[in-house]
């Protein structure tokens, strides 16, 4: 494989367009926001158990 490596000179090849990347970020952001809310509830519950 290494022997067949050739430069194409296209430095942007392979990187998806800005719209696709933004959509991926929105989906990731939504999943992480849900995770943060669940984690926050878990922190509250465990703090109550520990008497904090």
């Amino acid at each position, binding site marked *: 494989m*290494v022997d067949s*490596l*050739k*430069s*194409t000179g*296209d*430095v*942007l*090849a*392979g*990187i*998806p367009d*800005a719209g696709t*990347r*933004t959509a*991926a*970020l929105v989906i*990731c*952001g939504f999943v*992480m926001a849900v*995770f*943060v809310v669940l*984690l*926050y509830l*878990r*922190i509250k519950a*465990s*703090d109550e158990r*520990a*008497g*904090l």
Partner: protein
Amino acid sequence: MRWLDERTKILTPVNFLRKKEVPRHKHAFWYVFGGLALFFFGVQIVTGVLLLLYYSPTPGTAYESVEMIVASVPFGWFVRSLHSWSSNLLIAIVLIHFFSVFFLKAYRKPREAMWLTGVALLFLVLGFGFTGYLLPWDTNAYFATQIGTEIPRSIPLMGEFVVKILRGGEFIAEESLKRLFALHVVILPLLAIGLAALHVVLNQVQGSSVPIGIQRRDPPIPFFPNYLFRDFLAWTVGLFVLLCLALLFPVQLGTKADPFASAPVGIKPEWYFLPLFQTLRFMPAEIMGLNSELVVNVLVMVFTGGLFLVPFLDRNAAEGRRSPLFSVLGLAGIAYFILTISLAYLT
């Protein structure tokens, strides 16, 4: 689990963590940066291993292999972006952690060993940045490394030796790439993993420091699971920032390095080396008859030695008294760091 514990005592550290507590006070927020640094170090290991599967460390193939990672390997551009942005975030977080420990005087007795391992880790992280920069073998990487590896030359007695060790010859070439690659993927990670493990173990043994003058009124937080959940929260925020940077500003590859071309005009190193870069630019060619690079190298060595010795120099903090002189020195350090970085970008 009982079967496993009877044979390996695997629950001993878990039981230890169950008893560990984290102090609660108005500065406790700064504790999260240590865990956050560990998180980004983990991201670097995972993404670094993935890049290693396709990267080829020779001048004839390094650039092409990175180009292939970006263009042909599924999500290769994303993994490379994560690795690059995460390295910047790791250094930023380590610096924040360093300054927070410095200002809270958390280095004082009995945590001197934690400070020593922490400062060593700070320099190792900068070493990762320096050794990884050449690996894509593009124009900026090549000439920035050529300039960067030239700086130690003026160190008395050992300068030439250091340059030869780093480059493997007079100029940046195949040997240099192999050496920096070996440092980046084997030697520095082994040192960093060992030191980070020691740093974390010392933290577990000594616990988190309470700043001088803070009265502990609030009950402490149990580390497991209460504080660990808070760490997860900080890691999630850190991961989101990393995703934003990697997806909105994917790292691009420059043109392939041509060793026979002249260095691009206005070439600058990464932001964390700009204070050193700008200091060298400030200096006249000679200071009191001495080569200015020699003066800067000696200053850097004195500064580095001084950083390691902070817990032993700050006698007031060691005895539980406030030490405003060290706080002023820390503020001066931050001001110089920000000023030199700003000047380097603006001029």
